């Protein structure tokens, strides 16, 4: 097993290399560069810059160099721990992202916990009570949840919370606490705000998970080994949780590794709408303004999350399903 993990770790290097290339290419894909978008920005705010100024900017940012050179400079520096400067914010990328990535991880984890806590029981219920009223209600709600674009949901939830709860809008803190140092009161404030993004981000995930859980479980419920359990005198709930559910969980486990990155990227649009202090909004912004080192760093980070996630799920899968062997 250790050999397997080692091999997988080795594989991550070429993957990582490919990922950096892609991260770089993605940012370069749209026409123009940061300076073009900066010019557009100036122009739309009413004070266009002349082309000489823009050329000077290009020179300053090294955007006049060939792509390959730019790439290797970037990767070289990144390996040394220097993620470069954000053009837009005019400060080192690392100053900008760490805080945000921390918040991103927090939100993602809470969402994940929420999704699983809700989805598994509901999914199991829906399978065990197949075609009952409850099942139909759950089915209907899941699809409602799934068919609603998350950013729309974000807006509606936000509107309702404003209209009926009088919450302050957006973000993860009330204004008094935004720039305050950490304290117990700040944590409480965070918790009060956290539920909106968690619910909004979670809804679609829950819906999907409920459906998949239901389907997988339905496959297992008819298997003879369930009957064996029944013959042992196991209570129905224990029986279902311990046996078919356990088998039905396998497909999840094979994907658990990337739930996190998916949540992180899924949050991009929602967190924009909710103005969360996560990496999503600045990623969109960076992409739109082609702030390439900032965007690149965020994309790279996300890619690395996936790489680690996949590794984790491979290991987990081998761990939970003895039928899968990695030795040969």
């Amino acid at each position: 097993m250790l050999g397997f993990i080692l091999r997988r770790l080795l594989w991550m290097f070429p993957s990582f290399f490919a990922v950096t290339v892609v991260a770089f290419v993605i940012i370069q894909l749209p026409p123009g560069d940061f300076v073009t978008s900066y010019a557009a920005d100036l122009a739309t705010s009413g004070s266009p810059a002349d082309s000489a100024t823009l050329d000077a900017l290009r020179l300053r940012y090294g955007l006049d160099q060939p792509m390959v050179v730019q790439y290797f400079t970037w990767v070289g520096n990144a390996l040394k721990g220097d993620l470069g400067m954000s053009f837009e914010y005019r400060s080192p990328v690392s100053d900008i992202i760490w805080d945000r990535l921390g918040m991103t991880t927090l939100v993602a984890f809470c969402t994940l916990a929420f999704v699983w806590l809700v989805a598994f029981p509901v999914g199991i219920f829906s399978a065990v009570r197949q075609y009952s009223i409850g099942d139909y209600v759950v089915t209907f709600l899941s699809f409602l949840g799934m068919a609603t674009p998350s950013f729309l949901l974000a807006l509606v939830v936000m509107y309702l919370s404003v209209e009926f709860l009088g919450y302050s809008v957006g973000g993860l803190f009330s204004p008094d606490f935004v720039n305050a140092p950490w304290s117990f009161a700040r944590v409480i404030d965070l918790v009060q705000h956290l539920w909106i993004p968690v619910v909004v981000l979670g809804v679609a995930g829950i819906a999907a998970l409920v459906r998949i859980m239901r389907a997988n479980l339905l496959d297992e419920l008819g298997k003879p080994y369930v009957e064996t359990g029944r013959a042992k005198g196991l209570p129905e709930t224990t029986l279902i949780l311990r046996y078919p559910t356990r088998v039905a969980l396998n497909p999840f486990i094979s994907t658990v590794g990337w739930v996190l990155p998916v949540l992180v990227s899924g949050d991009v649009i929602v967190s924009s709408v909710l103005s969360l202090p996560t990496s999503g909004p600045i990623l969109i912004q960076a992409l739109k303004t082609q702030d390439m080192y900032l965007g690149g760093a965020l994309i790279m980070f996300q890619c690395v999350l996936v790489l680690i996630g996949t590794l984790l799920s491979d290991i987990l899968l081998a761990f939970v399903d003895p039928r899968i062997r990695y030795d040969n």
Partner: protein
Amino acid sequence: MTSVPPMPPQANDVVVEVKDLSTWFDTGKQVIKAVESLNLTLRRGRTHCIVGESGSGKSITARSILNIVPKPGRIMKGQVLLHGAGTGRDVIDLAALDPKGRQIRSVRGRDISMIFQEPMSSLSPVHTIGQQIMETIQLHRRIGKKEARERAIEVLAQVKIPRPERSIDAYPFEFSGGMRQRAMTAMALICEPKLVIADEPTTALDVTTQAEILDLMKGLQQRHGMALMFITHDMGVVAEIADDVTVMYMGEVVEHGPVNDIFFAPKHPYTQRLLASVRALERRSHRAGPAPKLSNDDAILEVSNVSMNFEARRRFFSRTPKEPPVKALDDVSFTLKRGEVLGIVGESGSGKTTLGRCVLRVLDPSSGRIVFKGRDAEPVDLAALPKSAVKPYWRKMRMIFQDPFSSLNPRMTVFQVIAEPLLNHGMTDRRALETEVAGLLERVGLPREAMWRYPHAFSGGQRQRIGIARTIALRPELIVADEATSALDVSLRAHMLDLLLGLCREFDMSFIFIGHDIGVIRYMCDRVAVMHRGRIVEIGDTDTVCDRPSHAYTRSLISAIPKPDPRLRGKTQRIRYASEVEG
């Protein structure tokens, strides 16, 4: 060997009383009356054997007692009365209880436990054997984890699982068929219930192990006065252990009574036919006739020095040193001549299935040569072929799987299953396929209509016949039959064997016939190989091996064969093979 005097029946001895039970399957288009108006009384300390043809409703009866009839089945009427349940020695009607309720749950596993017919599918694939066994006892007894584990190891040892301390952490797929079945048995016995329902619990066991298991059950019966409901096709076993016998036919009880009455004064024609078949199986098949002259150079298969190891599964991040690999096959050599039927017998877990699979290159042997010489073809060493090059030979060599259920795709109708090889080898016309499949089904004694049903809707024996039909469809040159008739009742078994033999002679087929029923081997085979711990310890003509065995293990094997005659009960002397118990 102790002989147990049957306890005289007493009124207050009744453990379970089945009254007028009917279980039907309503599939929406038709109603299958699997069990109809059945009456049965199971008594303390007595063994009640149920025999009957395949598909006659034995398993469904067993399930009905525990009230776990699979959908869409339903207990239509009748009572299943459990006497002396709980503290108040009340009588409760299990059939009337909520099948998922608390009351019936406390009965299941503790008062009544069950050994299911198909051990592979009846064990959860993702839990270790130990987990599954321990769960039962922890569920019904206040008992710590450690204690439960000790108890589980103890029972595993009792059912003769080698190295139980290690096997307890194995997964079902690492066990041989017989081992799984014994694990099931262990699970059923661990709580020492009032009643054990055993649904063909020894089909996958060699006779020596079977004898041990039967002894174990008898022992428990003596000690705790356990009642045993034993479903079997093996009349030898019936003769060996039964106190009472019930004969079922088409969902109904056609005859029941003490064992001697059934054996010596059968009334119903089916019972008579059954016993006739048993006697027929005592001898060599009339169809085998004098063995055709077989010359050594017409070998269809030459197996030389084949070994096969299973890597021991390594634990996650475990620091314990790697365990030695399991030597499933150890330097096995033999030759199979064209038209010959070679029997392979041996202890459960001795590597018979593995050998069969290696011959077909389903598994890759670690070393050795397997030379196959097809008709009008050059001999090839299958062991040396790359995996992809083996495929053409599978048309000429085929296999009957040991576990019929898992070898049938649950999502394909019987028609699709049987037509599959035909289709893959060029027969595409649907009408022709249908006729062909119908013909095959008829040959194995199933109605034409069966082809539109799915495998799960058949009884164990019916499924086995479907497997046979699939295998013979292509008229191969070599068939590896892995316990091909173990789930069939004797009368049907004789017919199936005759059918196979007929094919053998008609099309000059060769057989490797894996089994543990020496009677069947004697009936069927020209030569026998005896396997023990991955080795062939003895090989020779059937008569020689059966009548004058030379190896000690073979002798113990032969001595353990139960005789289908209740009068001989306890009279035969079983020889124990010394190395058998080393564990």
